[in-house]
């Protein structure tokens, strides 16, 4: 079996938002919509304060609450663990948005205009309008087209750039690592063996596919 997951080494992450920007480029997301972003956490009270940068996005859960609630089957779980959306089926009811405990989903009803209505769409916004995504649910896809291309062409997702999500490709700290957790020898499996890790909102039992490494074992 294969299950693709994302691992964030939060010892490495510096919150630069390069992944955020790379995701916005690759997926041409609307202004204000970030399928991947990095949060800026501050923990403690002066002077005993810590600051941590936490990449977030769709957790591609094993027991995906979004897929359970979706009335149209537009959101579905693939055999490789990726939670996908069939934009043509989705009615935009936004129920999945309410069901996601990771605030990973959005719905955008208007075409992308980064500088607002009065300036219209820029050329690159016109070029990749993604009109199929208007008024329906959207979220991180793990750049699924790359995964499919990669597996069809003998590439290893998480290793070969053409088969790896844009955020992991772009991460300048190599803090985001993508791979197959069901393969014990994969990059992610090795990292999870050698590091202490947590998943966000583990108590909600979503079977999150997003792991945070916080200390080397």
């Amino acid at each position, binding site marked *: 079996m294969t299950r693709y997951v994302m691992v964030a*080494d939060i*010892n*490495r992450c*510096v*919150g*630069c*938002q*390069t992944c*955020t*920007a*790379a995701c*916005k*480029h*690759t997926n*041409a997301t609307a*202004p*204000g919509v*970030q399928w991947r*972003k*990095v*949060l*800026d956490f*501050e923990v*403690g*009270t*002066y*002077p005993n*304060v*810590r*600051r*941590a*940068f936490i990449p977030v996005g769709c957790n591609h859960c094993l027991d995906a609450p979004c897929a359970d609630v979706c009335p149209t089957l537009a959101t579905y779980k693939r055999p490789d663990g990726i939670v996908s959306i069939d934009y043509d089926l989705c009615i935009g009811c936004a129920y999945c948005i309410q069901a996601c405990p990771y605030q990973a989903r959005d719905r955008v009803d208007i075409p992308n205009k*980064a*500088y607002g209505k009065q*300036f*219209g769409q*820029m*050329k*690159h*916004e*016109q*070029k*990749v309008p993604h009109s199929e995504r208007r008024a329906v649910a959207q979220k991180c896809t793990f*750049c699924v*087209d*790359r995964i499919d*291309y990669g597996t*069809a*062409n003998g590439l290893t997702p998480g290793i070969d*750039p*053409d088969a790896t999500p*844009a955020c992991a*490709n*772009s*991460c*300048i*700290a*190599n*803090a985001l690592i993508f791979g197959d957790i069901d393969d014990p020898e994969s990059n992610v499996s090795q990292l999870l063996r050698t590091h202490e890790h947590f998943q966000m909102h583990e108590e909600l039992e979503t079977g999150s596919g997003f792991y945070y490494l916080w200390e*080397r074992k």
Partner: protein
Amino acid sequence: MTTESPTGKTKIPTYCYQCVAGPDLLNVRVEDGIATEVQPNFDAADCTPAAGKVCVKAFGLIQKVYNPHRILTPMKRTNPKKGRNEDPKFVPISWDEALDTIADKVKQIQVEGKTDEAGYPKIAASFGGGGTSTYYMGTFPAFLSAITPIDMGFGSGQGVKCYHSEHLYGELWHRAFIVTPDTPKCDYIISFGMNIEASGGVCGVKRHADARDRGVKRIQVEPHLSQTGAASSEWVPIRPKTDPAFMFALIHVLLHEQRDRLDKVFLRDRTGSPYLVAPNGYYLRDPESKKPLIYDLKSKQAVPFDTPDTEPALEGQYILSGIELGADEDRWEHQDIKVTTAFEKLVEHMKPFTPLWAGRVCDVDHKIIRRIALEYLDHARIGETIEVDGRTMPLRPVAVTLGKTVNNGWGGFHCCWARTMLAVLVGALEVPGGTIGTTVRINRPASDRNDSVKLSEDGFLAYPMNPTDKENWVAKPEVRNANRTLVPLVGNSAWSQALGPTHLAWMQQEKGPEHWPQATKPALWFVYRTNPAISFWDTEQITETIATFPFTVCFAYTRDETNHMADILLPDRTDLEGLQLIRIGGTKFIEQFWDHQGFALRQPVTEPQGDTRDFTWISTELARRCGVLEKYNKAVNRGAAGVALKTDYYDFSLDESQAHDVETIWDANCKAASAEITGGKESQGLDYYKEKGYRLTGFPRIKWYLTAKMEDEGVRYELPYQETLKRVGVQLGRRLHERGISWWDEQLEEYEGLPDMMDFQALWEGALERNFGVDISDYPFWLVTSRSMQYAWGGNVSIQMIREVSQNIGTHGGLVMNTGQAHKLGLKDGDRVEITSPLSATRGILVTRQGIRPDTLMLMGQFDHWATPFAKDFDVPSMNSLVPMLLDLTDSSGSGADLARVKIKKIGDAK
């Protein structure tokens, strides 16, 4: 089945050099001629330290091309009145009209005299981005070289915003315009305010992440918890501008508690520690050879420093004879006087600076200071070696780094000296794992630090100090910031003007100091990739000054606060639209020390927007219209565009009598680059680089460190004692006093053999009280700033995506204040506040955070825009409008520091 890769069919390689932490290579995905996506260039993954990746700023470049706010045609001003509140009434004009207007101005200046009545160049130019604008201005440097002299001294941030003291003293001591840890091998870093995670670029971020992964311990000493503090093992919140005390205490612990554990071999052989210091503070010298003396423990006598087969004494006082050579012709002959080794002087000098003392100054527990000193020593692994490129070198994996405001302005000298001394005491200077330099800008040649290592008569690294002797002192300033006149350390390289006291150029426009030529306005001012009306200090005053300049030509991307006063706006092509070949690799700024070196091409990835023109086309046209085409072409042939087009083993030089098109010029440069990189064997031109994007060859790692060259040439670092500086200072003082100038006296005090400690906080407070007649206790907070990785140097405030993603960083929103302190004052997150310094006031939103000292406030980045589209709606204040330009707060290197005292007042509730 193989389908087309979803990452795109057409990817065009280019580079990003928006900040000094570059360059980085990237690909741009293009769909039907439209640039849609920035991607890493994974072809370069193995040969670039950044692994072929670019940071968040590069992702702004696509919106930069298609931004609807761009200026797309040349414009001229039709409202002769200039000022913030004057509408410039720009109207579109043709390129012919724009360039002819500028050419007429240049020709008139050439005919009527290139300098004005004060002796200053009539033409001035200001470029931003810490020199990175060069990588976007094509052959413009060749044009400028054809119309010299040019005053490059109107700074847009240099001196007040750069690592100024580090630049000058770093170059002086170890050819380190920029100082860095050898991060790939370093195990312990004490970082005083160095925000490497925000300013180190891809290379810096990746290397430090790798270092953390292998367990590097980095201590961040800083008043607020920056991104770097966040990513450090420990944060030590220190009182602003008290870093020198902390560092002096570290040295104290090493010298007075752990002296036996220091790297005495390094101190003895590679530094001036054994040199004997005579009573007047100069070295005791041999009367015959005039060489400094050391005391040889083998022969029990003083011998010249370079006498073979000696065992120089590191410590002790000796009764000896010899001469002492002071400033100018000062000379003392000594018989049996007591002299002290430089190291012994250091030990004595550092005695009072105990951790207990420093703890009180810095508001840091003294136990922490001592512990850090001991950890530093423990990690230094003194005595261990490592092999690099077949040579055995010391391995000293400890380093100290300094950030802005720590390494510039008063105290900058102290910190730079202390940092270098901390390396010297454990033998960690310019060795694997230790503190190294990455670039030279004042010494020559700039292309190779190792080649700039030259032995001085006294056995130290020779330094191209500006003359201070009677005959050769540059008494009459050559440019308005008087760089060579006032600051011997800036040397006389292409960068030296920008390294002068750049705020002096601005300050004098309002009121010059006594006995000084009256500052004049440049008759023609070129501005590119900079916005001093936002990025300098006292921005209101700067804006008013800019408005008085008679003729300003701005290369303009969008309207902004500086080009609001321009007479002509020239829209050049943006990063993804222009053509240029640059050198990459070797050792460059910040942490850019590579295993490769070579060239990279920036090329148009998409059709240029509007009637914008390539910078090289503009430069050639200006040269032709100004009648300096031949000089311009000569400069291009000489290598002004990056590569010499003719050498002994190849010749791709251009016909000097003709104007050449952009592609022809860069094709010649590409061919020369190919020839240079292959020793003349190959000569691929532009087409090759357009396809491949870059071309590299190896760069030996041994060149990351000066050690091999220093050892081979028998050169010493002039540390700990500063005889050269002391002499230069005395001479400079005499020269100035001979002209009746006493307003530089405080700066002269910094030229010391060993730096005297000062109360730097009091220095700031006193200067503000004196100059503004205020009671400083009415301004209870220190205001500091911090780097924004998303914005720094990028000139990208009008890029929506950059704004959007930067908002994810909590400290971007406004004035950052300690949560507890805010609570005490009845303030809460989101409140609207007025921030007032003795100079002026500004307004913004309060952001409460735990990670900042209660006595300190922080404003990130540089905003406060009022003309730049999109950015003018941010409502984010900048400290630049609050910081005064004051001579009192200018150090001897001509720099100041981003520091202010402020008070705040609530003016509105959180929404």
